[in-house]
């Protein structure tokens, strides 16, 4: 009997709720919006423009958004941020890494600095080239040009805008041109990856099955079936968990180290998820403890969704898979592991490791985790927040800069690794008056802080011209 999750792909289906919270938004008087498929439908229904519909290449090549389009994207990203992060935001203080502080500082840094880098990439490769950068993800594994990085390009800049608005450092009508740059670059990358007219997974019932068919078949063919051999399954699942933990840790407790695509529905009814785990990002100095570990392990997970009784699966816009029922691990019935040694290792040199050979790699991963913990536990608060800012601000646009051949240039000529003076000063402000613990979550995850750009249409250029 087919698993019930297939109903979710029926255009009339409203999906199921994954959380109880609702999103308020910044337009008074409108009904609160839930998460999930029904939430996406409601947000699309509210749009004043067509920017949330399936777009053509001509739509994406056009350089300038209208004001309605910018505000529709601002609203949708704000809801989408609630959808993927509201429940995660309850996790509170880390006890190890001041995550809340580094996140909002990084977001604000991105809002101020990313437009320059995005324009540089666009000037070098052209609008079509930006689309091609996004498209490159379809024929590769072990690439950070993926849902979470591509989403972050615009979503995190918008969260930075919300932070600066909350601090009253900017006004809603400031930086409109830069907003256009941020949203247009993100749109082109996301659209290029998907090639189906949508930008985001939430717009397509949380599907991110973006890999080309020949690559999907190659990965599926590599899967080892666990059958009646509990040891092989246990070894694979242990490796998955341990590598995933290190990928989070190497990225300062965030999922820029993790990248799921799927669900790929197989002929036998099982669902395949392709999971990149970036366990050794070479630009970070703290990755020295990762030694010879490769840039990325890619795991192929084959899930028996019929036995599981899968009701819904979301491969969400921050590259994480969630299911209902929640526990899919016991229903992984086959898997395989691939290695991409460096970020630019050619795809023909990406190789498969038999599950029986994972032991040494697992030991290396566990050793790196303990060493990273020891190293991190000795760092000062300043060091931890600075590294955290880097893990977001550098990493989110790193793969796009690398693909465009511009990473060295922005480092050498545009002070890529410097923290903007305005952000350096805000470092001392954000811990005060409950800003990161209470104000930021309230403004970001309810949507009330994502203020629209005022006015009815864009007239002329508009950046920021006064600091009062």
């Amino acid at each position: 009997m087919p698993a019930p999750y297939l109903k979710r792909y029926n255009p009339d289906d409203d999906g199921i709720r994954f959380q109880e919270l609702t999103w308020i938004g910044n337009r008074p008087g409108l009904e609160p919006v839930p998460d999930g498929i029904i939430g996406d439908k409601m947000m699309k229904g509210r749009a004043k423009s067509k920017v949330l519909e399936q777009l053509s290449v001509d739509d994406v090549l056009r350089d300038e958004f209208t004001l309605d389009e910018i505000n529709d994207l601002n609203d949708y990203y704000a809801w989408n941020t609630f959808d993927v992060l509201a429940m995660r935001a309850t996790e509170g203080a880390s006890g190890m890494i001041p995550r809340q502080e580094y996140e909002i500082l990084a977001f604000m840094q991105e809002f101020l600095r990313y437009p320059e880098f995005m324009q540089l990439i666009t000037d070098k490769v052209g609008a079509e080239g930006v689309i091609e950068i996004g498209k490159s993800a379809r024929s590769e594994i072990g690439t950070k040009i993926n849902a979470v990085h591509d989403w972050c390009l615009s979503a995190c800049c918008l969260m930075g805008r919300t932070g600066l608005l909350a601090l009253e450092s900017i006004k809603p009508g400031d930086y409109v041109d830069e907003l256009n740059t941020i949203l247009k670059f993100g749109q082109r990358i996301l659209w290029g990856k998907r090639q189906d007219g949508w930008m985001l997974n939430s717009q397509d019932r949380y599907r991110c099955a973006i890999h080309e068919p020949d690559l999907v078949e190659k990965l599926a063919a590599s899967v080892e079936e666990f059958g009646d051999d509990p040891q092989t399954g246990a070894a694979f699942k242990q490796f998955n968990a341990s590598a995933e933990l290190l990928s989070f840790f190497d990225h300062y407790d965030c999922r820029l180290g993790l990248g799921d695509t799927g669900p790929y529905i197989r002929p036998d009814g099982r669902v395949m998820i392709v999971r990149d785990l970036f366990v050794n990002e070479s630009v970070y100095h703290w990755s020295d403890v990762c030694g010879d570990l490769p840039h990325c392990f890619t795991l192929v997970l084959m899930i028996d969704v019929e036995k599981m009784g899968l009701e819904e699966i979301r491969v969400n816009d921050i590259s994480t898979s969630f299911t209902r029922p929640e526990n899919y691990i016991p229903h992984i019935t086959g898997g395989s592991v691939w290695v991409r040694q460096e970020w630019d290792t050619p795809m023909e040199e990406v190789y498969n490791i038999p599950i029986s050979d994972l032991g040494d790699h697992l030991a290396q991963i566990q050793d790196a985790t303990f060493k990273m913990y020891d190293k991190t536990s000795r760092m000062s608060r300043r060091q931890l927040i600075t590294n955290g800012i880097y893990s977001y601000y550098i990493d989110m646009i790193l793969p796009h800069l690398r693909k465009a051949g511009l990473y060295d240039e922005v480092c050498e000529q545009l002070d890529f690794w410097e923290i903007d003076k305005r952000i350096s000063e805000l470092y001392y402000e954000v811990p005060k008056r409950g800003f990161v613990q209470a104000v930021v979550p309230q403004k970001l995850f309810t949507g009330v802080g994502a203020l629209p750009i005022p006015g009815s249409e864009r007239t002329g250029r508009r950046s920021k011209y006064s600091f009062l």
Partner: protein
Amino acid sequence: MPEIAEGLNPFSTDAEAEGEVLFLSSPRDVIKLIKSGTLKEYILLVRGGTTTFLAPALQSGATGVITMSGAPESHLGILSREFQIPCVMSVHLTTGSGRYVAGETDEGHFQEIVDQLQGKRVRLDVTSPGVGRIYQVGAE
């Protein structure tokens, strides 16, 4: 066995987790526990729902985890599921003074939970979707 606390359950499993509750307040506590070789005797009680704080304990096969904040979508919720380590998140006492609300809960709430759970032998029941229960073992 009396139920003494309850919280959010990131994933359902029949796996049992039983041990003495040990509150870990700092990375130093975590390192000390790992080096002691007694990790599996304890159910770990931590403040936050992030994952790096408990990284070595997760890698070393912790028996069970209780957090005082966070949700199944939090990083620790995700990783506990990947490791299949029973976990009860944003726990509240059955006789206690309230529930965790991000940005609003004061320190007294957390201290009350530590005071009530630390040192007790407990069993985590994470068989129900969404809800995790903590029972005190050996109490009438």
